[in-house]
């Protein structure tokens, strides 16, 4: 069983690359230590929300303002546009709305307007740009979601047009559950007809011109409860992202993995890619540690989407040495010398903030003299150097754009034919 491409990592970047490659006929294997950040992030695609301290209205127009060496530097705007359209088409069940031309402004669980290029239809109705009247609904017992906080913070937020926001706290039907996580609540919407309860609880308490924001727990398997709610209430209803686990993120993971499975992509979790067999500047096989030892998977190409520091794609040891953990690739964005001194405040300028692998335009990691380290190795997602996604609000956008572009980087020179997969 030989694979054309092995993708290391199952976050949004890895899943995107794998899906693009498989739909172009490649036989793809994903190996991952575990599930990526899709389960944690709100499932919006944030291309670019801030340039410095300035909020971005149009990501497409603002991308040229990014510094040299930013991952988007290797993804032309038209390719980014194609990648986003492709993403929407492959997640049709979630009905993504938006595009690179303008950002939606969606409320977070803290009541902060957050710019996103794409949002699933169940969230897109929360767009604050047009102003209007909002009611935010909380469920008693559901942790870390406080409608009063959301409404109060939004009232102070800088928005293009003024909004009116109020809060409503509802008591859901009793349950034996002591701890109501997002997943548990979403499961109740799937299985216990909580939609009926919510319709009855809201129908006489919401004005005809109010939009209704509820925690993003309207169905785990699909957004059917959201659709039903909007239809029966005859109002715009939208989900507001919660603290992890992210139910819309779980739906996104499910949608992508279903597409991957039907494309014949094999996903193996709980294993660690530990190295490669190299021959003449190419990776011949990826070595993967499983239950008993190391298995070498022969490959034509490799996508490294193992994530940054948080996911273990990059590692900083107690001696101040930073390394890329799978292939020991050269890194860019490291501080001079070995001593890493962190600034006192979390959101200060920090050393290592932009550390990662630098690449060429085919997303191939390069060495200090800008030459590809391995001819057939491409990188995508949070492992790339040059971005500060938590400030720029660009993490998911970079994952989709570079996941897609890395796949294209493999496919384009595919005058090198896709090997006849043994299936």
């Amino acid at each position, binding site marked *: 069983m030989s694979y054309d491409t092995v993708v290391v990592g199952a976050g949004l970047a890895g899943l995107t690359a794998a899906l693009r490659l498989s739909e172009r006929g490649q036989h793809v294997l994903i190996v991952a230590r575990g599930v990526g950040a899709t389960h944690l992030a709100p499932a919006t695609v944030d291309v670019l929300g801030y340039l410095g301290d300035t909020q971005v209205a149009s990501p497409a127009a603002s991308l040229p303002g990014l510094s040299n060496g930013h991952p988007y530097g290797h993804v032309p705007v038209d390719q980014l546009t194609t990648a986003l359209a492709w993403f929407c088409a492959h997640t049709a069940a979630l009905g993504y709305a938006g595009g690179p031309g303008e950002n939606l402004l969606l409320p977070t669980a803290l009541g902060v307007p957050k710019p996103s290029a794409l949002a699933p239809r169940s969230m897109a109705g929360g767009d604050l740009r047009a102003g209007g009247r909002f009611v935010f609904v909380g469920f008693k017992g559901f942790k870390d979601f406080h409608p009063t906080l959301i409404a109060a913070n939004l009232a102070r937020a800088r928005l293009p047009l003024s909004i009116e926001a109020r809060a409503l706290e509802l008591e859901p039907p009793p349950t034996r559950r002591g701890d109501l996580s997002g997943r548990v609540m979403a499961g109740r919407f799937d299985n216990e007809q909580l939609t009926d309860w919510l319709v009855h609880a809201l129908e006489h308490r919401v004005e005809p011109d109010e939009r209704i924001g509820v925690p993003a727990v309207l169905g785990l398997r699909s957004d059917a409860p959201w659709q039903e709610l909007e239809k029966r209430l005859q109002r715009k209803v939208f989900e507001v992202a919660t603290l992890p686990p992210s139910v819309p993120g779980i739906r996104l993971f499910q949608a992508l993995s279903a597409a991957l499975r039907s494309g014949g992509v094999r996903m193996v979790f709980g294993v660690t890619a530990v190295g490669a067999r190299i021959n003449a500047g190419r990776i011949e096989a990826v070595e993967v540690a*499983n239950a008993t030892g190391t298995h070498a998977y022969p490959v034509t190409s490799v996508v490294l989407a193992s994530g940054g520091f948080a996911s*273990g794609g990059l590692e900083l040891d107690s001696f101040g040495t930073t390394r890329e953990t799978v292939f020991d690739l050269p890194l860019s964005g490291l501080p001079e010398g070995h001593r890493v001194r962190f600034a006192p405040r979390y959101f200060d300028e920090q050393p290592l903030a932009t550390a990662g692998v630098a690449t060429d335009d085919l997303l191939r990691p390069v060495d200090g003299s800008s030459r590809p380290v391995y001819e057939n190795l491409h990188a995508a997602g949070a492992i790339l150097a040059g971005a500060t996604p938590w400030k720029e609000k660009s993490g998911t956008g970079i994952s989709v754009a570079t996941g897609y572009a890395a796949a294209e980087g493999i496919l384009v020179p595919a005058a090198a034919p896709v090997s006849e997969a043994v299936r």
Partner: protein
Amino acid sequence: MNDAIRDSLDHCVKCTVCESFCPVSQVTPLFPGPKYAGPQAERYRGAGPSADSSVDYCSGCGICTQVCPQDVKIAEINSRARAALWEKRGVPLRNQLIARPTVIGRLGTPVAPLANWALHNRTVRGVVQSVIGIHRDAPMPSFAGRTFQRRSRSHHGPSAGPAVVYFHGCGTNYYEPRVGEMLVAVLEHNGFRVIVPPQDCCGLPLQSNGNFPAARTYVRRLVDRLAPHARAGLPIVSNSTSCGLMLKREAHEILGIEDDDLAIVSKSMYDVCEFLLGLHERGELRTDFNSLPLTIPYHAPCQQRGHGIGKPALDLLALVPDLNMIELDVDCCGIAGTYGLKKEKYDISMAVGKRLFDDIAATGSRVAACDSETCRWQITHGTGVKSVHPIELLYRAYGLGRNRSVPVKAGRPTAQVNA
């Protein structure tokens, strides 16, 4: 003990990915979830057992460990916490009994017809439920009567050819000796000489029921039987994914056994489909398969996923002309070895399995494929659909004897050929 397991909890960033995947906490509030019962509660356990018994509701499926992005050994932490709990309280008689398949096998085999009548008699099962606590509806296999060990003694395979050692496990020995015979036939068809050493339980059921000392005794005894072959450089294959995983990893990681015999046996262990696919990768697998015009859903059991080898059964079956396998996407069937047999856990196990049962039913197939024996019994119990080991499909595709257990017209024939 292996401290790497407990120390791994410091890697937990409380991201809740494990909570999102846990099939048990999804259906019952009695298990608070892998993060709560595992890395979080473990910090408070210190040397003593859990203050509450909720960790006993963990089924041990291991999905949490597989999906954890930070390599926290969640299932392993919970497995040990469960053992500490039962060490303090004393493992109940019921759990001692169902955790000893060889004892049950030796008792039931000589009186197989009577034992099978009793296992499937409503009145007897009702009494067993109230006296011992095994749920009256829980799936029970039938004793075969003549064990695989006995059958293999009268089997005369080839005397030459490369040798492979077969660890068949208790399920094959007492309940499904035909699966063992088919596995041997498939290996012999590929030119192997199959050695079947005398063998006993691997101790996994005792481990998952919290009796670590007895589990260690069993696994050491088994390793003693297998180690000389491993030292001779022979591969060992298994068709039981959970027992194979016990030898590959769990005896070391969970029971904390550190010895050279176990280490070499672990390195020599292969799931049978993994082994056959390895042959294929080297161009050594015979591919003289006949057409099998069937559409069959395949469930990779949770313990199979713990091997970290992908889904070799699907890769192999893709070589069979006209056979269309449907890859199911459900993590667990609910039975988790002996978990679903227990009176207080049966309903949970059926609720966990419901998605799998529904998905299998939706395919309209009369046959399902799955690598693990207890999962197959659960699937049949939950769906009424016959359930076979992938080796049985290979056996049929090779045309190795007439086998009636897969109905010829099962499923919807398809025109798709994956050659």
